[in-house]
């Protein structure tokens, strides 16, 4: 075995790598916030919406969960182009990732809803809370608290999966890596460095979610229940 690694030509491209990492993080943040909102709304739609809405939410979730992310990205990319919408690769990537993670979030939040005991809801109703107040205080907040660890995993997974958007030339970390390795012929070194950067990004995201969790779920903080 003759392993001859040279990281210097890769590392001297650190500004591009940093840019790529920031774009990846940006994509992850947009998709987390927008996809999280879509997921919560669709979970509510599936649980309490009129049959048509519930069915549409279900079709959306199953459609996304049973097709590859890359194909979804191409569908958004070429779909928008075919109706004459010329959006940047970055916008398309953010859109596709949002649609994707929204479906998975729907499933996770729905599981959270189902874990809420019927007695809890009746207790809220018995106190005179309106249906919307029951939804917010008795169903949504405790459900999100309960599935928060799963949501964290899903959003970190999404950040890693965003590497696929390099296929439509979104300038995220993997796209930058592809460019660097074709330029330097140091493919192995490039992807080692990039893998490490992804690890750091994952840790940053987990730390961020942990911090947010501590902030919005005081019970976890005060009782030391692990998130």
């Amino acid at each position, binding site marked *: 075995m003759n392993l001859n690694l040279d990281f210097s030509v890769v590392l001297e491209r650190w500004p591009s790598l940093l840019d790529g990492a920031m774009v990846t993080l940006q994509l992850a943040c947009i998709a987390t916030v927008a996809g999280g909102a879509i997921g919560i709304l669709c979970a509510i739609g599936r649980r309490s919406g009129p049959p048509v809405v519930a069915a549409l939410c279900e079709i959306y979730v199953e459609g996304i969960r049973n097709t590859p992310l890359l194909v979804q990205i191409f569908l958004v990319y070429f779909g928008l182009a075919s109706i004459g919408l010329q959006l940047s690769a970055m916008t398309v990537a953010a859109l596709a990732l949002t649609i994707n993670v929204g479906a998975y979030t729907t499933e996770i939040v729905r599981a959270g809803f189902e874990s809420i*005991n019927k*007695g*809890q809801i*009746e*207790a*809220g*109703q*018995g*106190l*005179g*809370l*309106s249906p919307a*107040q029951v939804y917010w*205080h*008795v169903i949504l*907040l*405790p459900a999100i*608290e309960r599935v928060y660890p799963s949501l964290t995993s899903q959003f970190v997974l999404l950040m890693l999966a965003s590497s696929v958007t390099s296929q439509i030339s979104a300038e995220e970390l993997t796209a930058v890596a592809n460019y660097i390795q074709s330029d330097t012929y140091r493919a192995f070194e490039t992807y080692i460095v990039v893998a490490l950067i992804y690890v750091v990004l994952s840790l940053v995201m987990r730390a961020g979610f942990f911090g947010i969790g501590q902030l919005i*779920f005081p*019970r976890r903080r*005060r*009782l030391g229940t692990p998130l």
Partner: protein
Amino acid sequence: MSPAPTSATGQDPAVRLSDVHKSFGTNKVLDGVSFDVPRGSVTTIIGRSGSGKSTALRCIDRFERIDRGEITVCGHRVHEPSLDLRALRLDVGIVFQSYNLFPHLTVEENIILAPTAVKKMPKAEARELARRVLAQVGLEEKLHAYPEQLSGGQQQRGAIARSLAMQPKVMLFDEVTSALDPELTGEVLKVIEQLAADGMTMVLVTHEMAFARGIADQVVFMHRGKVHEIGPAAILSSPATQELAQFVGTGL
């Protein structure tokens, strides 16, 4: 069986059930149930599992809709589709067997949620109220505890305090001690006895026969979806029907 006469003051009863029918599918759970609960009095509903006693209680707070008959609670015509559900629930407090404190909120937050969200009470005032109702159930020191940090008896007392904070005119208790061991049962029953002494109108479904006898102004014995026997607590000592005699014989 005809409804019991209204209270001596001549007021309408706090709760009146008239010929209430309710089925779940083909299963007839309430088969013409009628009784009155005079204001300021305590009615206990007893009977075997499946006799319809919990369903009767839940119908009072419209957790179940009745098929036929009439239920009037503090002037609210519960059986009518036009019922103002929110107004009904402001007048009626209900406590369940499984406590149902909200797990993500402290005892204090559990108590102030409804007063602030429903009655728009200022937070400071609601906190003051929380202290007061917790003192009433002997749980002042658990103000900032989470439900999971409390024993079953403490959780149930917290749930009673949460209900009291809405200052209901009628309190319903649905087998509130069934999940508790005898010692914890005692501390919850003491709280309920104090409420009775304070003149709260209450309807209790209970399996605690000694308690039912001690606290009740009126006992309703339900059997197969009907009010089989109704009267003062004394009917438990001298049952008129064989079914009640049998039930008391096994229940005591």
